[in-house]
């Protein structure tokens, strides 16, 4: 297990390092000058040069990479070129929206998907199964932003239960903040729940066909007990893997829903920073996202290794 963990750690560091080189190199290639963007079409050459100097853009590329990567290794993400604030501060502010949003939709989708998947598996080929499969098909086909627009139409514009977007900040209390996050979380959760319900159904059906389950049934164990004690634990491994993939997706991919609801999340920060050529912010956020994905994947692998009910002798 220790060797396994060390291997994971090494690959994690290498991946993040490669990501830092990749994002830095890509940003050197795309056209666009953050100083020119800041000063606009009436900027004079001497003003531009002064601002480029202030931004540190007059340094050679390698010097800038080493400077940035060195700070990064010490945990310093640098200072934003446009906002003139530490990147860590900006990211923390945005994570305060994106993480609760992702967590909320993860909870909503899991709470909905597991029982639905189990129900479909238990009622295979019958009405319940068809209903769940129908929901899953619909949920997978509808993109989050479309669901988001439907939710806004119903709950904001017609019923006036929820705001149509925006985020009041956590400073105003947990209630209003959660109130603003519920619709977007729901919009994100529906497609997730659809995928998860299907995966759960398939995984449970697979295990139901296996020998140890047949043996259990032959021993006279009840249907419900077989489902919950023998089939579900085994089925949880593929479910957890998909769930892990989805966490990364929820954090990195919430940008569209954040835009529809105008939520100040990490996705929108990245989107704006690319538009502004705020290189320091883009680099920092991309490296953090890479780190996040790698860490989540590692955790999922470890969790799967732990959850595997097979005897833990020897490496397999």
């Amino acid at each position: 297990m220790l060797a396994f963990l060390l291997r994971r750690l090494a690959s994690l560091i290498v991946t993040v390092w490669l990501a830092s080189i990749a994002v830095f190199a890509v940003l050197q290639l795309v056209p666009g000058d953050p100083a020119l963007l800041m000063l606009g079409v009436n900027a004079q050459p001497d003003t531009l040069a002064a601002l480029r100097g202030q931004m540190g853009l007059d340094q050679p590329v390698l010097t800038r990479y080493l400077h940035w990567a060195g700070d990064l290794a010490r945990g310093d993400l640098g200072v934003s070129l446009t906002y003139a604030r530490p990147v860590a501060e900006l990211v923390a502010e945005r994570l305060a929206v994106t993480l609760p949003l992702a967590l909320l939709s993860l909870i909503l989708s899991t709470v909905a998907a597991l029982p639905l998947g189990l129900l479909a598996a238990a009622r295979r080929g019958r009405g319940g199964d068809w209903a769940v499969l129908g929901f899953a098909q619909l949920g997978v086909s509808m993109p989050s932003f479309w669901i988001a627009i439907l939710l806004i139409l119903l709950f904001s514009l017609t019923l006036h239960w929820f705001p149509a977007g925006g985020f009041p900040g956590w400073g105003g209390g947990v209630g209003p903040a959660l109130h603003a996050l519920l619709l977007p979380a729901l919009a994100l959760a529906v497609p997730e729940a659809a995928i998860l319900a299907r995966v759960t159904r398939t995984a449970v059906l697979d295990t139901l066909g296996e020998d140890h389950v047949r043996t259990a049934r032959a021993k006279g164990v009840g249907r419900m007990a077989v489902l919950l004690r023998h089939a579900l634990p085994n089925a949880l491994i593929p479910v957890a893997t998909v769930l892990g993939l989805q966490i990364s997706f929820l954090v990195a991919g919430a940008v569209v829903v954040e835009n529809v609801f105008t939520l100040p999340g990490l996705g929108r920060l990245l989107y704006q920073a690319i538009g502004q050529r705020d290189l320091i912010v883009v680099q920092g956020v991309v490296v953090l996202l890479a780190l996040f994905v790698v860490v989540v994947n590692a955790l999922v692998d470890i969790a799967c290794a732990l959850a595997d009910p097979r005897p833990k002798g020897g490496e397999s």
Partner: protein
Amino acid sequence: MPTAKPRFTLAAAVAVALVATSLTATAQPRTDLVVGMALEPPHLDPTAGAAGAIKEVTYANLFEPLLRVDADGRLIPGLAERWTVSEDGLTYRFSLRPNAKFHDGTAADSADVKFTLDRARAADSVNAQKAYFAPIAKVETPDPHTAVVTLSRPDGLFLFHMASGDAAIVAPESAATNKQKPVGTGPFRFDRWVAGDRVVLVRNPDYDGVQPKLDRVTFRFVSDPAAQVAALKAGDIDAFTLFSTYEALPEFRSDPNFTVTVGSTEGETILSTNNARKPFDDVRVRRAMAHAIDRQTLIEGVLYGNGVAIGSHFPPHREGYVDLTGMYPYDPAKAKALLAEAGYPNGFDTTLRLPPPPYARRGGELVAAMLAEVGIRAKIEPVEWAAWLEKTFKGKDYDLTMIAHTEPLDIDIYARPDYYFNYKSERFNGLNDELNRIQDPARRNALYGEEQKVLAEDAVNGFLFMLPSVTVQKAKLTGMWVNRPVQANDVTGVSWK
């Protein structure tokens, strides 16, 4: 249970108080305002950035220049309550409001004016409009309430430039931190900034001028067109300025809860043309393109009719405007004839690069279709803003592009050497030099007229239309600006009926 009763009484008292406040709240007009804007400012220092959104939050609300521009484009007192100009147009004497204070409590005096102007024209200045300050030779402070500015050459637009957000008066103590914690002299103070979502300003009780009627103004940033409409309809936003989801306007116009106003901006929208590149170096080709474009159809298609056609680089609402829209009437046959005369009987291939704003993306498609009618096959190349600035504006590597020039009175860009149009005209430069020397308004307006004619005759660019200033607001709101003579959301005169 001795504590139960007082608790109940307290709860009852709170309930009564709540009911009472809600009753009075319904009886009295609201004193808060939520303004919607499409773009978020990158920071809040108007003296260190060109982004229009910075001035749209701060101008006149947070920061005051020496002079201000009012809703009709007139110059009115700002931090200076009076000013005089010497006969030779070289000495400007500004008398400041005696009790003006910055939001941190320090006095706003002539030393701050000197600091601001010297900082903007210094070698390491990062002011986006540094050219505004170039004529200044020296700034003197005979007393705390008087600033005397001496110019090295006359500049007919100097006062106008000193009324721009770029010339907002800042204090040496706070200049470095204004980007995040702006400290100005205006009737509103900075309260907080929820990055990515909103900036909140509150009334400045210590303001020495006329107190605004609003206590709290929130600027919310909503870039998605569908989200803008939803936020207005849900009542989350009271007024959306520079609204560009034109297709939603009929819906708001027919709703009695909303008022829609359409006013003017300073944004001349043009088909910028690389005058140095073949075949656009031939004036016949440029005139052919002018004949090929049907401006009215363009205005219908892009702005849903909410725009005014132009025939040169000058806004119709300003004094000195000459109507030249009739110089090149829409006439595809004539355009083809001119192209044949120039040696392109079968037209030619070219590229039309389009930056992100909807007027450009939508308008570009229409312009390309109109050019195709006369044989000019323009390949559309959408680019993002950063790439547009780098390749088109700075690199001057382009054929055609479509863009709104939003700076007020910016016809002088045609006299700049190395500007991205690559246009050179001795005649125009001569007129521009004369304009810089002359103060007399009548003579200035005549010169502006001459300049417009030269640009139209040379068909330097395709002159298309003025970008409208569209505001969708709640019907009970009064005092919002209809026109946009400067980049601003001046809410100092806004109130609820």
